[in-house]
């Protein structure tokens, strides 16, 4: 248990430019703390996130991947996150089916107004991943540092 506490999970967060990335900025403006090893990649819309990116992140050794977008119905591009939701539903289900990383991937909707919630979501996820420990199943051993 102890070493799990010390273990700092590597987490990649894909955030859509209009809601979630702004939400992250909001978290910053409000000085809401979340772990340093959560790193954000900006995409225009959650529908830009290719399952390939997520698998790649795991392959390169990410312990968790989270995708954030506008709440359904509020997509800046009106329908993007609906497609993203379908895609990620399938991907998540498949990762779980393969027994590799279902529990290490999460989708959350965070609006531009939800800075505090962004931090909350990130803290929850980081905790969740920390409890799971290191990603060994879906990491490419060649890429071990």
């Amino acid at each position, binding site marked *: 248990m102890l070493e799990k506490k010390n273990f700092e999970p590597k987490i990649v967060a894909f955030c859509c430019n209009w809601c979630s990335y702004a939400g992250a900025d909001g978290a910053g403006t409000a000085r809401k703390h979340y772990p340093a090893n959560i790193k954000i990649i900006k995409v225009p819309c959650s529908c830009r996130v290719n399952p390939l990116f997520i698998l790649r992140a795991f392959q390169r050794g990410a312990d968790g991947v989270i995708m954030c977008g506008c709440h359904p119905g509020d997509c800046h591009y009106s329908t993007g996150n609906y497609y993203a939701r379908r895609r990620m539903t399938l991907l998540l289900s498949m990762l779980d089916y393969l027994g590799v990383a279902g529990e290490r991937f999460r989708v959350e909707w965070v609006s531009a107004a939800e800075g505090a919630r962004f931090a909350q979501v990130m803290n929850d996820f980081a905790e969740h991943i920390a409890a799971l420990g290191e990603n060994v199943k879906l990491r*490419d051993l*060649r*890429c*071990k*540092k």
Partner: protein
Amino acid sequence: MYKIAKDNLPKLYVALQNIGTLLLPCKNKSGHADFAPYREDAEIALDAPLTNRSAKDVFFPQVENLLTFKTSGKELALEQNVPPVGVTIVMGVRACDARSFKILDKVFLKAPVDTYYKTRREQCVLIGLGCSAPEETCFCHAFGIDAGAPETDVQTWLAGEELCWQAVTANGEELTAKLVDGGVLVEAAADAAAAVSEQQEHTQKILSVLPLHDFKVNDELTKDELKVFHSKIWEQLAAGCLSCCTCTYVCPTCHCYDIRDYQETEERTQRYRCWDSCMAKDFTLMAHGSPRKTKVERFRQRYMHKLVYFPENNEGEYACVGCGRCLQKCPVQLNIVKVAKALEKAEVKQDV
């Protein structure tokens, strides 16, 4: 000649394991036999008619790191990867596969020598197993291979309740000596030899009644390369081909590879080689495109290489050993036999 009771085979495996890394046909989850490192719990299938893939992986792995690039800051350092040192023993090699290694040698050991292949090859002792139940897809005889006597360092036969053992090469003798000293192998009586030759005759008998018994690649084909090259028949033959790499990857003599880089970490990049196939669209792809733009061209390339180019450059030796894997594995039942027959019909007998 020596022998060991079938029931004692595990003893033999362990003994061999102590001498070097032992690879032998083991069943995988889907019941296919493939060469795999010996493990006590492995489901060993010495008698499996034919492994999924030949043992060529032992000398020519599907993926092999050649070089490592190491960067620190703006500095770059190179490191050559050397294959691991140590004896490898491959057991249960069939006559067809045994011949295929000789063919690969002609490719990799000719100058410029492929040191990766050479190192692995030289460290290896091959223990062949005579065939007793050839399948209808077998046609090794078409290339003068004796299914009952594989060209290996040691020949073995599963006859009756025993495995008969006959050293052939110096390497084989050396290995045998160790096993005899260790009391694993015991001197076999004359009847063993009799049993073996009986089995060999029986094998020949079966081969003589199997569908492909009279199949032979017509030597005429090598006489007029261009004629064959321009044959109309290729179009028809290639029609069904999917351009997948199955035939290539299961073929014991195919040896094309590609070299690529893979960045493992910020500081480390591997230059590796991996099997490639002349059937693949992107084979030898260059800036201007592919030298063989159509499926027909790529299809023709593979069979021209096996049936024409290779024999032309290697004293008439075909780059095929009649293992029949392509007959078993091709998704659309295309195979070298079909091609060779069609070519003969079209270009030698000219009755198309």
